[in-house]
C-alpha cells in the first residue's frame, strides 16, 4: 500500500553504533550490517565484515528503527507551492522517517480512485521514502455522502480521513464505520465540533481572554471523540483519533481502550512541547494550528497518555503553508505548522533531555504510527527490511539556519536551538537521507 521511487538497496555497515529498538529488545553497541536493503546482522563492535559495503563510523551515534508519521500534508494536488511528494518525502527523510501517511484534504480533495492511482504513480517516481495516501471519507470533504470507499481501497488508498475538517454528522460518521466492514482500512478522525469551535483560533482560556481571540474550547474536541468512541463501539469498527490536544480527550480515549473499543490515538510534537502561552507572541507562523496549543495541564495529560500507551504514536501533522498565508494577523492566518524535520530533535530536547520521558519511549512512539495503518512496525531485528535512523544525540543545531527540505518554512521550531540530529535515514532498504555536513569517515 506504500509507494516510493525504487533505488539501489543499501549495503551499509554502521560501525560501533549504539542500537536501540525497545520493541525488539535491542539495546547496545553493535556493528549494524545492512545487506541488499535488509538488516543482515548485528555484529560485535568492530567485528562485522564490511566487504563491498559502505562503512560509517557510528561510534557515539545512535541507530533507531526509523520513524513513521501517520499524519502528513503533502499538499498535492493543487497546492504544490507549499509542498509536493518530492519535497515532503525529502523533509520526512531528513527527520528520520521511513514512512508517512499523506492526508487527503488537498485542493481538490482526494476522493476518487483516479486521484489515488495518480498519486501512487507520482510517489513511484518522486518519493524518497514510502508514502501511503488516504482518501476522504466524504465526497469533496463536504460531510454529506460517502466516497466510493471500496474502489478507493482497490486503487491503493491506505485508509480514509476528512482531516482538516470533522465529520460533523453522526449519521454520516456511523455510515462510514458500517461501510468499513466492506472496504477495510483505517478511518482517521479530526475531532472538532464545528459548532462549539466556531470562530475559534486558539485554545479557549485565560490567554484567549487576555488577547481577545476567539476560543476553540477543549470540549469541542472531547465531545466529538466521545461520540465517535460510542459509535465505533456500537459498530465494532476501528478508528484512529488524530492530534489529541486536550486532557479530557486523553481521558476519553483511555476509557474507550479499557472498554475494548478498537481505537488508536496520536499526539503531535507541538502539543507535547508547547502551551497556549506561546500565542501571547501573536505569531501565527509558529503558533497557530488546529487543534490549538492548550494549557500546561493538557500537555501533561498528553505526556501521561504517551507513557501509558493511551497515545501509541507521535504524528507531526506536518502542515506546510506559504509565507503569504502566515504574514498576516493571527486571526487571518492559515492553521498549521511544519514538523517532519524537527520532530525527533524537538522531542529529544524538550522531553528526553530534561528526563520527562525515556529515549526508549520516544523511539517506540515515533514508530508507533505504522500499526494503526496496517504497516509493519520499523525494526532493527535481523532479517527485516532496513529502516534505520542514525542520530547524533549531542549535535546542537538552530532550526531554519540552513533552510528546510520542506518547501515551506512555517516550522514551530524556527529559530530554536535543538539538540539531537538525524544524520542518515535508511527507508525501505534505501539510503533516503544523509545530512550534508555529516562527514562519512571510513572506519579503520
Amino acid at each position, binding site marked *: 500500500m506504500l509507494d516510493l521511487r525504487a533505488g539501489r538497496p543499501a549495503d551499509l555497515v554502521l560501525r560501533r553504533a549504539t542500537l536501540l529498538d525497545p520493541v525488539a529488545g535491542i539495546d547496545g553497541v553493535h556493528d549494524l550490517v545492512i545487506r541488499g536493503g535488509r538488516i543482515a546482522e548485528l555484529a560485535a563492535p568492530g567485528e562485522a565484515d564490511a566487504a563491498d559495503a559502505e562503512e560509517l563510523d557510528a561510534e557515539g551515534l545512535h541507530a533507531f528503527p526509523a520513524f513513521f508519521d501517520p499524519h502528513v500534508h503533502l499538499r498535492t494536488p493543487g497546492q504544490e507551492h507549499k509542498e509536493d511528494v518530492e519535497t515532503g518525502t525529502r523533509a520526512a527523510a531528513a527527520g528520520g522517517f521511513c514512512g508517512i501517511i499523506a492526508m487527503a484534504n488537498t485542493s481538490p480533495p482526494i476522493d476518487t480512485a483516479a486521484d489515488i492511482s495518480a498519486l501512487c504513480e507520482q510517489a513511484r517516481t518522486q518519493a524518497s521514502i514510502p508514502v501511503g495516501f488516504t482518501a476522504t471519507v466524504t465526497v469533496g470533504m463536504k460531510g454529506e455522502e460517502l466516497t466510493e470507499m471500496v474502489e478507493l481501497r482497490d486503487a491503493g488508498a491506505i485508509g480514509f480521513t476528512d482531516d482538516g475538517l470533522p465529520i460533523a454528522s453522526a449519521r454520516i460518521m456511523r455510515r462510514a464505520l458500517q461501510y468499513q466492514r466492506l472496504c477495510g482500512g483505517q478511518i482517521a478522525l479530526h475531532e472538532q465540533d464545528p459548532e462549539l469551535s466556531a470562530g475559534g483560533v486558539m485554545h479557549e*482560556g485565560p490567554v484567549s481572554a*487576555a488577547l*481577545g481571540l476567539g476560543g476553540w474550547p477543549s470540549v469541542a474536541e472531547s465531545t466529538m471523540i466521545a461520540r465517535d468512541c460510542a459509535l465505533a463501539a456500537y459498530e465494532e469498527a476501528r478508528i484512529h483519533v488524530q492530534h489529541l490536544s486536550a486532557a479530557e480527550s486523553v481521558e476519553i480515549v483511555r476509557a474507550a481502550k479499557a472498554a475494548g473499543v478498537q481505537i488508536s490515538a496520536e499526539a503531535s510534537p507541538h502539543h507535547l512541547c508547547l502551551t497556549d502561552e506561546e500565542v501571547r507572541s501573536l505569531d501565527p507562523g509558529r503558533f497557530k494550528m488546529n487543534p490549538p496549543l492548550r494549557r500546561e495541564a493538557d500537555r501533561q495529560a498528553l505526556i501521561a497518555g504517551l507513557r501509558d500507551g493511551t497515545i501509541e504514536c507521535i504524528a507531526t501533522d506536518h502542515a506546510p503553508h506559504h509565507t503569504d498565508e502566515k504574514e*498576516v494577523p493571527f486571526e487571518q492566518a492559515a492553521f498549521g505548522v511544519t514538523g517532519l524535520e524537527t520532530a525527533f530533535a524537538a522531542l529529544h530536547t524538550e522531553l528526553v533531555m530534561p528526563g520527562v520521558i525515556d529515549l526508549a519511549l520516544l523511539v517506540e512512539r515515533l514508530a508507533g504510527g505504522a500499526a494503526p495503518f496496517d504497516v509493519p512496525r520499523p525494526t532493527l531485528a535481523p532479517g527485516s527490511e532496513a529502516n534505520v535512523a542514525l542520530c547524533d544525540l549531542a549535535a546542537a543545531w538552530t532550526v531554519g539556519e540552513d533552510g528546510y527540505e520542506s518547501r515551506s518554512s512555517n516550522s514551530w521550531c524556527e529559530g530554536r536551538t535543538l539538540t539531537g540530529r538525524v544524520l542518515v535515514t535508511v527507508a525501505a532498504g534505501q539510503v533516503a537521507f544523509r545530512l550534508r555536513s555529516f562527514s562519512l569517515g571510513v572506519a579503520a
Partner: protein
Amino acid sequence: MKNLLSIEEVDRGAIEAILDRAESFAEVGRRDIKKVPTLRGRTVVTLFYESSTRTSSSFELAAKRLSADLVSVKAAGSSVDKGESLKDTVATLSAYDPAAIVIRHPYAGAAQMVAAWTPAAVVNAGDGKHEHPSQALLDVYTLRRRLGSLEGRKIWIVGDVLHSRVARSNLIAFRRMGAEVTLCGPPTLIPRGIEELGCRVTHSLDGLEEADVVYALRMQLERMNDKLVPSLREYAANFQIDTRRLGPRQLLMHPGPVNRGVEISGEAIDSPQSLIGEQVAAGLVVRMAILYELLAGGPERPSAIGEGAAQSSAPVIGQPA
C-alpha cells in the same frame, strides 16, 4: 518608548508621564492658537481598516495641533479594496518616510506586525478585540482629573466584555494605576478565564453601589454573528445603567458610540455624573501626548512644549490643509 502597541507593555511611570504631558497640552488647548510646532516637517499616517469617529478624528487633530503633515488612509476606497495585503500597504506608506503610523485593524496583533515592517513609530488605535491603549490612557486621564488618583478606587466595567478591546486595555490600565476592577455582564459576553487578568467577575448588577466608577461598554451588535443574549430588551432589563441604578456620587463612563437606551439610559447619559463628553475631550490631548512621547518625547527634552508654546504665534509652514 518606540511604539504604543498595547497598554500591557506600558508601566505605571510611563502612563503617568503621558498623562502629565497631556495636562500641559490641555493648557495649550485653552489658548487662542492651539497649535505647537513640535512635529513640524514630520509626517503622521493614520491607517484605519475599521470605521471610527472619535479615535480617527482625535489622532488626526492631534497630529495637526503638533504641526505634523498628515496622511489619512481609510481601507474603504483605498488599494485595500483591490486586495493589497497589510504588509504591502505598510511598505507603500513607509516609502513616504512617516514618523508615525497610527493603525486600526479588525484583527489582533496587526499593529505589532506593522511595527516589524516599518521604521516608523507605530500606534495601535485598536486591533480586533485585543487592545486599545490610547483609549485606556484617555480614560485614566479623565478619571485622574476627577478623582486625583485611582488608587483603591472601585471600577465596574459593565456589558459586552467579550467583544471589547476597551475592556481589556482599561482593565489592565486601571489595575496598574491601583484601582480594583469588577467585570459585569451576562455569562455569554464574559470571556472564560478573564479573571486571571486580576479582576472580579460577576453576572449581576447587585452590589454596583460599591463602585466609584461605572464604565459601560457598547453592545457590539456588528460583531455579534451569533445571538449571545436573547434580546436587547432582556439585556437592558438586567444590565442597563440608568439613573435608578446609578448612585448620585458614582461616575459614569462609556467609550462611545453609545447605543442610547441599550447599555445606558438616555437620562444617565445626560446626567451630571456622565464623563462621556470629557472622555472625548481627553482623547485629543492624550493622543497629542502619545504622538509627542513617541516622536519628540522622552525626559531629555522636557522643555519642548514650552518652546512650542512660545513659537506658536509664529506662522507655521507646511501645515496640512
